[in-house]
């Protein structure tokens, strides 16, 4: 799991963390009930203050992404399955739209692109 912090960004550091952890959860890199790093170890690894990571976790908890159990740690909250699926579908759609744009820019036909998609899809 990657969390990249920019010190020069206008966006407060805790918001950067919130956004990135949300994406990690939506993408499914952290599964339901999986444990997140502790507030203190995350602060150490990112070399930021404990208060900042604490604020980020509080925000994530408020938005329903994680649950914090006193003395045990923070865990990815049980998600609303429908909602989660919708979010993932949205990601697929976005990526496909990107691919279509890229294809159009070099004048690939729909047929050619479908062929590529079929090959890629069946590759695994």
């Amino acid at each position, binding site marked *: 799991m990657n969390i990249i912090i920019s010190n020069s960004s206008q966006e407060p550091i805790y918001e950067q963390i919130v956004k990135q952890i949300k994406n990690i959860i939506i993408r499914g890199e952290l599964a339901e009930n999986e444990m997140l790093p502790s507030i203190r170890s995350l602060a150490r690894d990112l070399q*930021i203050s404990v208060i900042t990571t604490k604020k980020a976790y509080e925000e994530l908890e408020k938005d329903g992404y994680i649950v914090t159990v006193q003395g045990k740690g923070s865990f990815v909250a049980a998600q609303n399955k429908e909602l989660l699926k919708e979010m993932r579908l949205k990601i697929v759609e976005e990526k496909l739209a990107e691919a279509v744009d890229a294809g159009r820019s070099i004048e690939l036909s729909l047929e050619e692109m479908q062929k590529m998609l079929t090959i890629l899809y069946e590759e695994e």
Partner: protein
Amino acid sequence: MAPVLEVRDLKKSFKDFAINNISFTLEKGYIMGFIGPNGAGKSTTIKLILNLLKKNDGEIKIFGLDNIKYEKEVKNRIGFVFDENYFYEELTVMEMKRLIASFYKNWDDRVFNKYIKEFSLPPKAKIKELSKGMKMKFSIAIALSHDAELLIMDEPTSGLDPIIRSELLDILTFLIQDENKSVFFSTHITSDLDKIADYITFINHGSIVFSCAKDDIVEKHGLVKGPKEILNADVRKHFIGIKETPYGFEGLAGDRQQVKRILGDKAIIDKPSLDDIMLYYAKEVQNV
């Protein structure tokens, strides 16, 4: 629960310098940076906390206990690191350790030996043969080997290169993985250690300018750059300090959002560093 360190209305006057009504609080499990220009009163405050100087008035509580009445108990639970070398130059690392260990109830040789190894300190070298960075690491090894709950450091980074400063930062973040440990350190180099500080207490001319969460300070203030024409008397009021050059101005605003509303896109507004903040507050008097 009592805060780890509580200073209230602390006063101390010398012939030509005074500390006026200093108050601040450090909660357990956090790191507080104590910043201010040279001669602002940082070392004096730390000496008062450790009862190395006699206060004129006020109250200092460590672990909820009066720092003078319970001096012995309190000091057993504190580790401290000073800028200046306060060890006997002629003793070796191990001899000096033995001397200091005898003062502490909870001294743990295993912990000390672990740090010596980690820091690659030569046990048989005399203190005077150690480099400045090595001496600092030795002080830290000493300060951390009796299970101290509060680490107090006076200018631990001054005169050290960025690599050792970064190592110190790692040591501190590792230390507070245990949420019962807290750190209070003074510095005038705000750039590296303050990355990890939770709270910042800023002292200038013997008075506290502010003492609050670092994130709040950095998010609230704004470093504004723009053309001088937009600086009318009304706009100036929103600044803590302004620096003007032939090509424009740079200034620190106390409320970033407000200035953004007033100036719109006529100026560039950046997130200030702690250095910027310290600079403008310290210069405030000259600018008004």
